[in-house]
C-alpha cells in the first residue's frame, strides 16, 4: 500500500472517530442538562469543552458552546470541521474505498456542512446530533462489510482506536484527575448525576449496568472504562485493537523497521492489561491517564517513522 494512502486512511479514521465522540458528547449534554440545576449543567459543560478542546470554556451558555464545538468552521476541532477533514482525506484516496463507503461519507458531509446552529436549535437540537451519530454508525457497518479487511482496513482501525484511547483517557482525566490545571474557575468534583453522564458520554451506561448493576461508583466506572476487555469504548479494548492492527500493517517491512512500533504498543498493552484500579488513587490516576495519551503519541510517531514518512535512502 502506498505510504500516502496509509496516511490518508489513518487520518480519515481519526477524524471520523473525533466526529463521533463530539456528536455524542453534545447529544448527551443537551439531553441531560434538562434534568440538572443550572449550576450543575454549567460545570458539566466546562468539562465537555475541556475534554474536546483542552481549554477552559470562555462561556457556559449551551447555545454558544454548541455553536463553537459543532458548527464553527474556523474551529479545526469542531464537528463540521472533523467531518470535512474526514471527507477530504477520503476524497484523496477515493479509489481505495468501496463505493458504498465513499458515497455514504460524502452524503453525510453534504448534509451537514451547510448546517448552522440556527437551523438546528429551533426543534430538539439533540436530534441533529443523534442523527449524525446514527449516520456514523452506518458508515462503520458499511465499512466493515464492504471493504476488504486488508492493510487499508487495518490502518483505518489503527487511526480510530489510537484516537479513541486518547479521547476516552482525556475524558476520564477530567472527571477523575486534577480537573484543570491553571483554570480560573475549575468545576467542583463530579456529583452522582455527572457519573451517569460520563457513562453516557462513552455509550457505556447500559453495558456498565449489565456488568456492575445500576450501582454507580466512581472506582467501578473507572475500572470499566479503563480496564474492561470487552467493551468497545474502554481504553483497554482500544489498545488491544491498536496492537492487533499494527501486527497486520506493512507486513513486508523487515523486522528492524517494525521493532519500535511493536515494542511501544506492547508496553502500552501491558500497562492496561495488568493495571489495577485499587493502585490508582488521586494523583496516580492522573499520571496514569496522561501517560496513556503520551504513549499513544509515541506509537503514532513510530508508525510514521517506520511506514509512512520514512527516509527513502534508508530502504534503497
Amino acid at each position: 500500500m502506498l505510504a500516502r494512502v496509509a496516511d490518508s486512511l489513518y487520518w480519515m479514521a481519526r477524524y471520523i472517530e473525533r466526529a463521533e465522540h463530539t456528536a455524542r458528547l453534545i447529544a448527551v449534554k443537551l439531553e441531560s442538562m434538562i434534568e440538572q440545576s443550572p449550576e450543575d449543567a454549567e460545570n458539566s459543560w466546562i468539562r465537555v469543552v475541556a475534554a474536546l478542546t483542552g481549554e477552559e470554556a470562555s462561556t457556559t451558555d449551551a447555545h454558544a458552546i454548541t455553536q463553537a464545538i459543532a458548527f464553527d468552521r474556523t474551529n479545526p476541532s469542531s464537528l463540521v470541521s472533523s467531518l470535512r477533514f474526514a471527507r477530504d482525506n477520503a476524497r484523496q484516496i477515493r479509489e481505495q474505498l468501496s463505493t458504498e463507503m465513499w458515497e455514504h461519507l460524502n452524503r453525510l458531509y453534504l448534509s451537514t456542512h451547510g448546517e448552522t446552529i440556527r437551523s438546528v436549535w429551533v426543534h430538539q437540537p439533540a436530534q441533529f446530533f443523534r442523527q449524525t451519530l446514527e449516520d456514523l454508525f452506518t458508515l462503520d457497518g458499511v465499512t466493515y462489510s464492504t471493504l476488504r479487511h486488508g492493510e487499508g482496513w487495518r490502518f483505518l482501525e489503527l487511526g480510530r482506536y489510537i484516537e479513541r484511547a486518547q479521547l476516552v483517557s482525556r475524558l476520564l482525566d477530567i472527571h477523575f484527575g486534577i480537573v484543570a490545571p491553571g483554570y480560573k474557575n475549575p468545576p467542583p468534583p463530579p456529583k452522582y448525576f455527572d457519573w451517569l453522564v460520563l457513562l453516557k458520554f462513552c455509550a457505556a451506561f447500559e453495558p456498565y449496568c449489565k456488568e456492575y448493576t445500576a450501582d454507580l461508583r466512581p472506582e467501578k466506572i473507572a475500572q470499566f472504562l479503563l480496564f474492561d476487555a470487552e467493551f468497545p469504548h474502554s481504553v483497554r479494548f482500544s489498545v488491544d485493537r491498536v496492537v492487533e492492527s499494527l501486527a497486520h500493517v506493512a507486513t513486508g517491512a523487515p523486522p528492524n523497521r517494525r521493532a519500535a512500533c511493536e515494542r511501544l504498543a506492547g508496553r502500552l498493552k501491558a500497562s492496561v492489561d495488568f493495571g489495577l484500579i485499587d493502585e490508582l488513587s488521586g494523583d496516580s490516576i492522573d499520571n496514569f491517564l496522561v501517560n496513556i495519551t503520551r504513549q499513544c503519541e509515541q506509537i503514532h510517531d513510530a508508525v510514521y517513522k517506520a511506514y509512512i514518512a520514512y527516509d527513502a535512502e534508508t530502504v534503497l
Partner: protein
Amino acid sequence: MQKGVPSGLELGVEDHHPSTPAKPVRPGEAAPYAHYELSAAYDEMFTPKGHVRAHYGQLDLRLLTLEPDELLRRQQACEQSFLHQGITFTVYSDNQSTERIIPTDLLPRIVTGAEWDRVERGLKQRIQALNLFLRDIYAEGRVLKDGVIPRKLILGSKHYRREMRGVAVPHGSYVNVCGSDLIRCEDGHFAVLEDNLRVPSGVSYMLANRDVVRRAFPNVFRASRVRPIEQYPNELLATLKSLVPFQEDVSIAVLTPGVFNSAFFEHAFLARQMGVELVEGRDLLVNDNVVYARTTSGLKRIDVIYRRVDDDFIDPLVFREDSTLGVAGLFNAYRAGNVVLANALGTGVADDKAVYAYVPRLIRYYLSEEPILDNIETFLCREEKSLSHVLANLDKLVVKAVGESGGYGMLVGPHASQGEREEFARKLKADPENYIAQPTIQLSTAPTYVNGGVEARHVDLRPFILHGEETRIVPGGLTRVALKKGSLVVNSSQGGGSKDTWVLND
C-alpha cells in the same frame, strides 16, 4: 399531456407501444417538444421536415408518455447521483465552499450502428497515421525531407520535444489514448474538428452518464439495443499492459497531479476501475534509472505509468524545474527503457491546429489510403493566399490560435463586433503563422432537457481511441452539449455539459 396520448407512467408500460409511431410527431406540436426549434444545423432526432428519425423512435415514444414532472424527477435523480458520487467541482465564496456537479443531460444522443462503424474505421486509420507520423519526426524525419509538411512547423513547435529523438517507444505507439473531437456537419456526415493527443479527459463522464441514463430509461435502453461501453477500463488496462510485451506481472500506476486537479475524479475513477495504484509525483522516486513507489513496506517498482500530468510538469530535471507534480529523474528512466509512459512525451506536436490541416495528407503519405473521415476546411494563415482570403472574410470565419485549446484565443467572426475583428486582424498580420481559420461550422443539434421541456442544443462527440499492440475503440464516446440556446461552445469550462451516447445495434 397531449390528448389521446396514453399516460402510462409505470416503467413496464413503454414496452407495450408499437415500435414506430403511427404518425410522426413534429417539433412544436406535442408537449415535450413545444419549444423545439429546427435550424440550418443537422438535427440528430428530427429530419428537416420534422419527422422523427427511426433510431430515435423508442426514445420519442417514451418522452411523449412521460408527465413533465416525471422528466424533471429523473433529471434530478441523475444530478443527485453525480453529487453523491462526487462528480463535482468546488465553488468558493465568502469562506463557504459549495459543490457543483459537472452538468449532465438526461436525454441520450443516439447514433446508428452503420454510421458508427464508418466513424470507427476512420478513427483507427487516423490514429495509425498519427502514430507513424510521430515515430517518423522523432526518428529520421522522412516526412520532412519529402516536403509533405514544413520542417519549421514541426521543429519550431513548442510541443516538439527534442529530448524524445531516438527514444524507443513500444509498438511505435506514441499516442495510447486519444480523444478526437468530431462534429456532424449540415449534410449529416461526421468530420474531425481536432485531435487530442496529450492527456485527453472525459472518459469517466462517458461511463458515469451511461450509468445514470440507463437507470432513467431502462426500457428504452433495452429496446433500443445499445452497444455496451463498460469494457473501457478493461481495454485501457489491456492497452497499458501490452506496452510491456514480455512481462508476466506488470505493475501499472495512474499518475495524477492531485486532488485539486479538475479531472481528479477521472484519475481516481480509472485507477479504481482498472484496479491499479493511483499515484502522485511525491509517491514516486527514481533510483538507478528505475521508478519506485513508496509503500508502507518499502519501495515497489513501477513498469507503466498512465500519466495524466502534462509533458512540461513531468520531470523537473528535464522540463519545467518549478514543477512539483512530477518526478525527478523520470525522463532518464524512461529513456533507459525502464518505465513506459502513456502517452509518450512530445505527442502535442501532432495535435497542433496547424498540423491538423495536414492530417489528410499524412494519411495518404503513410498509409496510401484516402482519409475515411473528413477534416474541416482549414486555412493556414502562414500561406499568403490563405491569409488574404481570411482577412477579407473575417466576418464569416472562425480564427484560432494554433497552440491554444479549450476555446481560448479564438475569434468567432459572425458573432464578433467590428472592433474585435479589426483588433484580431492586426494580430493576424503581425503573426500569421500562429493562426488558422475555418468556416463557421454549424454543430448538429440534439434533444436536450432544458426549462422543463425538450429543446434542440448543439453537440459534438469525443470518442476515445486506445492504441497499443492493437487499436480499440468503445462505441460512442462523450457527447458534449452547449446548454445555452444557440451557443456552439461545448467546452465544460464555458458552460457546456455532457450526455450519454448510444450506438445502436441496427
